[in-house]
């Protein structure tokens, strides 16, 4: 009898080495379900195929294609939509958790009316009719005084135009967005230069990436679709990625090189890289001379000042590193860059953004495969008739602030100061998907104070599905639907392929919640029941689906495919190809990956388009008074979406207001005078959270629920702190006490605190009130899921101690400019202490105004603009704030 060799793990593995060929030809009957089913799903219990409803995810704002799988009319799973060209069947952890918004036991399901003091937490449930009647009555009063005293501020607006329709119906211009706490300086840095407000880096096909302050693998704009392409570029295309960031984010960790920069100095590094490229004559001269409004010689002359040595002194990045990176970037083709909040969220964020953007421009990497591409998107028509624009301008709105005339996306975070000083008179204040009491600079010390004050905000209506920090201060809450229960049109330039999509309700909305377009319609119908006031005609639609038909049933191409019915079935249009489960790419019928179209600006105008057009001496092609293209080398191109159809390296509009029209960099003045023991506070997002709303989502809160402050090892040693110790972080407007996380992964002069934690509202999970020993009658306990909450640290929110400062060009909040003193916590400091002061915030706001074009420090910051005549040159009167 043959004796079996004694097998141990080693001998097993030896055997396995020989089995490869046999294993390869062995029958394979089982495949990964998700790849194989792609778009289908079955119940693991019953084996029954689940109902699949394609949607566009709206957990955050990337707008991934998704599919909701339902059993028993309940979402049991969310997955990526394999037909979606941008996200290709993948969904991030946040998207996978989206059903918790709908089924959250702390969700608001009924209209609620405040009882007692604002913010006291006492409510009375009222009927929709009672709520609408009260809101309509308050609107009526406000309309009699001035429609602009009706203010609507929104956070995330994906309604496809409904909020504008509502405000225009009321005749109010006071519609305020949130973009200045988001990315407005990035947008304003880009728009005058090349038209659109964002870029699409072709990561998948590039060879080299310079990443300035973006954490694209975790959190930044277009995280899911772009991170897929970053991985492809790295694996399939062997690209190199270099990340400049104050913090070793997961993107920085994934990069070939992480180069820590002194906070707020990315722009200086970018300019120095440009200096080297131009000095070494590595620029794409033909592109610059043909497609920009400057010559190579002008550019070279301008960039002479930005030497690597100059940048080293400012940024701490060695000149030799800058030299090397510059040459690598310019000599590797194709190459691209990516930026997000890192460069933009500073006092002069728009300058920084533009400085970064100039790198792909001067190297001719624009709209090339593997380069820095224009965004691709699609639009849809609005239902007719449309209400006219309001007759009178508000002091400020989502596009305009008189002290920040270049900030085309508004300066929303300054609103509370203008409400307080009377420049924005409010009678009725609406909020929609917003939570500035938590998300904005000053947080409760600023927004909380103003929205709590009934003399400043006499009537406050929140349209919300959850009791966020802002909604908790409302007088009336109208229960909005979470995204799985709404109709909304979508298109987002999150890949190189344009698409249209929809969100559609996966089931009936819960309780008495109503989606935004319906509840706004109902308000208008209450105001104008018989149409005699001329309002109702703009709101004559049956339901959300009916509204969508107005958007989608007549779009050429989509119409032939079936219009809205096609979108209801597929969630997205067009379907470019099929998802290859092996590669994860969208392929054509032959199995080849579909190719993107490049060189959009070089699309030639047709004879029909040129008919009647005029070409001026600069080659600008105009028709009916509108620029439609540019003639270059005898050909008529569409060009870029700027007034001169070129890339504007020199932005003349900026010069009108005394800003440098050429690429430049300004140090943050208060960073230059920092003391040795001071640091700069920055914030960041983790991959499982968004700004505010995700703390109530159970799966995500379990993964990340606290936010210790990142401090460099060397710095921590100086102040005598180790990981877990309490530190006191003090800015000029307040202080907080939090825990330290000591790491080499952060610049020694920076302290970084992630946001999305430390809630004092947003339900039991976010606040951990269920863990409080003393029972609070207004906060429930002991539901079975909450018994599984094993953590008792909800984190500390930093925004109260961050002053509101606006970029005088782009209007962005200077999130990353706050100077703080960090010390080991004292005996009286408690974890979670947050103290901030309204008066000190007001002082900081006033100080910030001094950098506006009307401010006294503006000229001092711009000695190179000595020829500027002052605000009068712009033809604007200085409109000061009354504070």
């Amino acid at each position, binding site marked *: 009898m043959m004796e079996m060799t004694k097998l141990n793990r080693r001998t097993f593995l030896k055997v396995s080495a020989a089995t490869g060929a046999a294993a390869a030809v062995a029958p394979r009957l089982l495949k990964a379900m998700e790849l194989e089913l792609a778009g289908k799903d079955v119940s693991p219990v019953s084996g029954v195929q689940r109902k699949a409803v394609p949607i566009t995810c709206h957990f955050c704002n990337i707008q991934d294609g998704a599919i909701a799988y339902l059993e028993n009319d309940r979402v049991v799973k969310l997955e990526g939509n394999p037909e979606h060209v941008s996200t290709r069947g993948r969904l991030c952890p946040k998207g996978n958790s989206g059903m918790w918004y709908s089924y959250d*036991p*702390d969700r608001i399901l009924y209209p609620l009316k405040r009882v007692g003091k604002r913010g006291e937490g006492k409510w*009375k449930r009222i009927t929709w009719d009672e709520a609408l009647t009260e809101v309509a009555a308050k609107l009526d009063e406000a309309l009699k005084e001035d429609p602009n005293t009706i203010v609507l501020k929104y956070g995330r607006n994906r309604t496809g135009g409904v909020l504008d329709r509502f405000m225009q119906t009321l005749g109010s211009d006071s519609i305020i967005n949130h973009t200045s706490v988001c990315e407005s300086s990035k947008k304003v840095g880009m728009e005058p230069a090349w038209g659109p407000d964002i870029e699409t880096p072709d990561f998948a096909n590039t060879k080299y990436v310079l990443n300035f302050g973006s954490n694209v693998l975790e959190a930044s704009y277009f995280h899911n679709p772009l991170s897929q392409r970053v991985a492809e570029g790295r694996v399939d295309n062997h690209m190199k990625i270099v990340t400049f960031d104050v913090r070793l984010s997961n993107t920085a960790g994934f990069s070939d090189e992480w180069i820590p920069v002194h906070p707020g100095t990315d722009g200086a590094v970018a300019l120095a890289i440009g200096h080297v490229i131009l000095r070494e004559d590595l620029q794409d001269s033909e592109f610059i001379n043909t497609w920009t409004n400057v010559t190579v010689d002008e550019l070279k002359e301008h960039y002479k000042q930005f030497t690597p040595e100059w940048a080293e002194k400012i940024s701490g990045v060695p000149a030799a590193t800058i030299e090397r990176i510059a040459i690598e970037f310019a000599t590797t083709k194709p190459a691209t860059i990516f930026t997000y909040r890192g460069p933009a969220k500073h006092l002069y964020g728009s300058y920084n953004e533009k400085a970064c953007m100039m790198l792909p421009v001067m190297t001719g990497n624009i709209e090339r495969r593997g380069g820095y591409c224009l965004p691709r998107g699609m639009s849809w028509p609005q239902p007719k008739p449309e209400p006219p624009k309001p007759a009178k301008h508000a002091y400020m709105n989502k596009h305009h602030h008189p002290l920040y005339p270049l900030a085309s996306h508004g300066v929303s975070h300054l609103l509370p100061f203008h409400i307080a000083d009377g420049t924005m008179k409010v009678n009725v204040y609406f909020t929609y998907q917003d939570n500035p009491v938590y998300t904005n600079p000053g947080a409760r010390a600023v927004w909380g104070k103003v929205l709590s004050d009934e003399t400043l905000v006499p009537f406050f209506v929140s349209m919300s599905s959850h009791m966020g920090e802002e909604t908790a201060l409302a007088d009336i809450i109208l229960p909005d639907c979470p995204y799985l229960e709404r109709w909304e049109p979508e298109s987002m330039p999150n890949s190189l392929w344009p698409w249209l999509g929809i969100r559609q309700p996966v089931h009936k909305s819960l309780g008495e919640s109503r989606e935004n377009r319906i509840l706004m319609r109902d308000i208008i119908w209450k105001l104008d029941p018989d149409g005699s006031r001329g309002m109702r005609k703009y709101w004559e639609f049956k339901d959300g689906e009916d509204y969508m038909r107005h958007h989608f049933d007549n779009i050429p191409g989509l119409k032939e495919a079936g219009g809205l019915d096609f979108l209801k079935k597929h969630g997205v249009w067009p379907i470019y190809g099929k998802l290859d489960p092996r590669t994860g790419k969208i392929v054509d019928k032959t199995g080849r990956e579909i190719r993107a179209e490049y060189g959009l600006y070089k699309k030639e105008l047709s004879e029909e388009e040129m008919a009647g057009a005029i070409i001026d001496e600069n080659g600008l092609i105009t028709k009916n008074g509108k620029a439609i293209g540019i003639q270059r080398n005898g050909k008529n191109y569409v060009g870029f979406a700027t007034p001169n159809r070129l890339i504007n390296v020199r932005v003349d509009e900026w010069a009108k207001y005394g800003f440098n029209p050429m690429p430049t960099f300004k140090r943050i003045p208060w960073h230059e005078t920092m003391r040795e023991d001071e640091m700069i506070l920055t914030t960041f997002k983790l991959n499982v959270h968004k700004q505010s709303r995700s703390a109530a989502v159970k799966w995500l809160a379990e993964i990340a629920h606290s936010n210790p402050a990142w401090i460099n090892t060397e710095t921590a040693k100086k102040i005598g702190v180790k990981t877990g110790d309490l530190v006191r972080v003090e800015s000029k407007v307040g202080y907080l006490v939090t825990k330290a996380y000591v790491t080499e992964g952060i610049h020694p002069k920076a302290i970084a605190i992630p946001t999305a934690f430390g809630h004092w509202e947003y*339900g039991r999970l976010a606040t951990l009130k269920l863990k409080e020993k003393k*029972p609070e009658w207004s906060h*429930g*306990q002991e539901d079975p899921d*909450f018994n599984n909450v094993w953590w008792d640290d909800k984190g500390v929110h930093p925004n109260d101690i961050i002053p509101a400062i606006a970029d005088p060009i782009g209007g962005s909040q200077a999130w990353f400019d706050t100077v703080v003193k960090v010390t080991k916590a004292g005996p009286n400091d408690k974890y979670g202490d947050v103290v901030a002061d309204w008066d000190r915030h007001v002082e900081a706001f006033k100080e910030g105004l001094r950098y506006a074009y009307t401010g006294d420090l503006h000229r001092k910051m711009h000695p190179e603009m000595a020829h500027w005549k002052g605000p009068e040159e712009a033809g604007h009167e200085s409109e000061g704030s009354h504070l």
Partner: protein
Amino acid sequence: MKTSQIEGKKSGISQPTAIPEVAAGMAAECGARALLYRLLSAVFVEEASAEFLSAMRTPEMLEQLAEVGIGFDADFTAAPLAELVDTLAVEYASLFAASGGFPPVESVRLYGRYRHEPNFEVMQTYQRLGFVLQPGRHEVFADQLGVELMFIAELLERQAEALAKGDLIASRKLEKEIKRFWSRHLGRWVRGYARLIERAAMHSFYREMARFLRGFAEEEIAALGLHIEDADGARLEVPKAEVQEAADPQKPGCTSDAAPPGRQGIRRLQDLRLPSVPD
């Protein structure tokens, strides 16, 4: 309570029939229980109306409730009616309808989220038995406490009708449905939930009505002869002594005669004969 079962001859199938006076007694008891269910349903399904509160504050009602150990404070008995309606509406919203409260919804209590299995199960049960859920003043979930209690009230009323007609087969079917519903739904969550509300309520009305609900639930479970684990979050606080005894197959009536041991302050059902209360 006397019951009788007479073997029927038709088709060889035994056909239970009721002695008329026994059936009448059983029918009356079902009717009385239905009223209690309706009363509790009215407390929890939505904010209490002025009419309902007036009926609750009648001397007879207060006296009967006092007899079973339910005693309201002056905040309920002495407050002007209009003020009471308002106060209780705020308390209702805080406890049951606003963020951070305790939604009286089985899905939430047992699964920690709205619209889960119980919601669909009870909806199917309602449909199977010919009921449709319609919104009242507000739209509520099918597995909301008030709706579940209302459903049992409906079944009991049907049972009372069947008994009045001497139809014991129909009566038994309905009793089975009631037992099944208690076993699968109400019995799994309502005791722990009631205990939670007793502790959380600021106003004596909800505190006491939650006590009443708990006692009533325990009584019903015992009377129906059921063993049901209290699966609600507060189940660990259920004293072992309150574990109910098994069903007695020889007792087909709506309730058993003897109250289970270990419950103080809560009277047996048949002692509660409440005046008619608007629902």
